[in-house]
């Protein structure tokens, strides 16, 4: 049924978006996301993409154009990186708080300074409190598949929250590999048309959208938004299962547990470094070490319960490999999230934060094995408050 192609991450993102038949697309090129815009423009020029393509003058306008289209009831798509995301922050925040579902791909790039154009997750990780759902994926197939999943999640009536599909710049955006591209018919069968019933911007129903609200109303909206985020936890898992039965591929939903049975030492990964992490786990399993890996696929909403469940009683220590930093914590960002999730439920495990891969630096197999060594040592001699280890 599906076509097997060799696609770059950016091509996979463009193809995934096109398969979902958005009504309006607006995007502005930025390294390393640029070829997403180029591929979409080419498909549009070839008549293969029926969407309105708006060639905006900035990311701020890209997010604004799709916001207007979403406000009026359309399905929309855009993509960006780093400075582009920073520039669109104002309408970006508004998109989620107006509860306008859409999908935006982020080809992750380190934030300046020093000046850089290369990979890093600081851009998207920094905006994790903006009310969007955020996926972090591992390979190009997952980029394409997650974009399709994301429309279904975003548009679910119990969710209605926009979704970011984040993939590491260059390490995925420019990586070319085998990707199965499903047929339009199959995607159509999986993803029903978007018919918003919670927002109207139509002369046939003349009401204001987003007038000024007082504080008490604001609390109610935020409350609802937070509840919807929690509702999304189940929706994400279920959509992934449904995706699996339709397309034959699934990703574990919120998290992927890799060789976690009887694991005593667990490494957390996020994004494209997961592959190196899995290879490292395989190497250590071959020598009889009881190690496992949890790939955090969704950073928002945070998959607290899935993580708690995955960390069975046998687990004695954890390590978290971040491609971003948490200024002020002196650790990576995901590390703090994981630790907070455990602490809130009275689970206490010694852990180490690993920071690597900033500004295009590689997170290698050697880094992952070194990280495992450090966590194994920690499990043998448990200790809290361990210093962050920089993978350089």
């Amino acid at each position: 049924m599906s076509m097997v192609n060799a696609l770059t991450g950016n091509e996979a993102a463009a193809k995934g978006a096109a398969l979902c038949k958005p009504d309006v697309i607006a995007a502005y090129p930025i390294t390393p996301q640029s070829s997403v815009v180029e591929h979409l423009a080419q498909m549009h020029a070839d008549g293969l993409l029926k969407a309105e393509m708006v060639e905006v003058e900035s990311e701020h306008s890209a997010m604004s154009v799709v916001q207007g289209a979403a406000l009026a009831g359309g399905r929309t798509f855009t993509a960006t990186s780093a400075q582009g995301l920073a520039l669109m922050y104002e309408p970006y925040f508004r998109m989620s708080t107006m509860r306008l579902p859409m999908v935006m791909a982020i080809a992750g790039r380190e934030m300046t300074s020093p000046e850089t154009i290369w990979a890093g997750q600081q851009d998207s990780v920094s905006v994790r409190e903006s009310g969007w759902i955020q996926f972090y994926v591992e390979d190009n197939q997952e980029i394409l598949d997650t974009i399709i999943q994301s429309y279904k999640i975003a548009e679910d009536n119990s969710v209605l929250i926009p979704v970011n599909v984040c993939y590491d710049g260059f390490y995925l955006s420019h990586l070319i590999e085998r990707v199965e591209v499903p047929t339009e018919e199959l995607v159509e069968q999986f993803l029903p048309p978007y018919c918003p019933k919670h927002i109207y911007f139509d002369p046939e129903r003349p009401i204001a959208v987003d007038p000024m609200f007082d504080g008490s109303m604001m609390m109610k909206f935020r409350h609802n938004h937070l509840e919807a985020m929690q509702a999304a936890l189940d929706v994400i898992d279920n959509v992934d299962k449904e995706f699996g039965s339709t397309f034959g591929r699934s990703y574990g939903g919120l998290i992927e547990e890799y060789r976690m049975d009887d694991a005593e030492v667990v490494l957390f990964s996020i994004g494209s470094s997961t592959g190196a992490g899995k290879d490292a786990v395989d190497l250590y399993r071959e020598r009889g070490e009881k190690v496992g890996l949890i790939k955090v696929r969704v950073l928002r909403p945070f998959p607290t319960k899935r993580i708690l469940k995955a960390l069975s009683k046998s687990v004695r220590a954890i390590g978290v490999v971040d491609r971003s930093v948490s200024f002020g914590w002196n650790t990576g960002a995901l590390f703090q999230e994981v630790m907070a999730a455990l602490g809130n439920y009275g689970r206490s495990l010694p852990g180490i934060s690993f920071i690597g891969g900033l500004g295009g630096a590689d997170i290698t197999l050697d880094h992952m094995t070194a990280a495992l060594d450090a966590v194994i040592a920690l499990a043998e001699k448990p200790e809290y408050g361990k210093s962050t280890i920089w993978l350089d």
Partner: protein
Amino acid sequence: MNLNEVFFELEDLASPGLSACPGCPAELALRIVLKIVGNNTLLGVTPGCMTGAGAVGWNRLSGVKVPVTMPLLTNAASLFSGVKRFCHTQGRDDIRVVVFAGDGATADAGFQALSGAAERNENILYICYDNEGYMNTGFQRSGTSSKGSYTSTTPVGSVIKGKQQNKKDMPLIMAMHDAAYVATLSTAYTRDFVNKVEKALSIKDGFVYLHIFSPCLSGWRYESKNTISVGRLAVQTNFYPLYEYREGRFTQTVKVKNAKPIQEFLNSVGKFKHFDEKQTADIQQWVDRRYSLLESLWRDS
């Protein structure tokens, strides 16, 4: 359209009770525009006086009788480009998409989005009501504040007296984007005002920009009853000439015979009260220079 029809027959689509200052010409402009554009409209009103006055609404109430939303200060033109593009995908090109924006949302923070939308020739009607400053938040300077104006961020001190730079000329800038239609309007010239809004609506092939001179009684310091006369003086002194641009041609629409000295306009509002002879001469020189540029455009096209 007959003016009696506009003022006594067409439905006022704004709420009858908006909290704009008594005598505010922007409120008048909004009401006239909405009457003419009619019900089949999607309206955007940028953060500023008119949203402060309740044009978008409050809590679960709406300020006008057409669908309305408040875009950001920075993105009215692009957000409504998206609205219009989506309407197009639905085969609903008949829906008018109108932005009613202040000068901050137009000439300053919102300028990039505006310029982009005009360059793409998006099929929207963008209206700027220019009260020469951020009047909703306490009369701060904007790019369209005229030179020498007192504003709360360009105060009159013992050394520096008012804004030090000239007004950003938005209508000419937008004409140079080769927008489908550009015009300057004043609520003091009703017939011209109505003609231009009607003409704007007749243009369906691209970006339309209307610039409305909108004196501000609180920020500029004059009595509410003088709103119209202040606006009229701006035209009669050539401070704010009324003209339009369409398909490469500039046309003066209200001719001023024997223009009055700028002093008369300056005297009509408090924000120029501190002017000495030199400041008056400077602004007169600016007015004359710009008017002769416009004259050459009108003459040559």
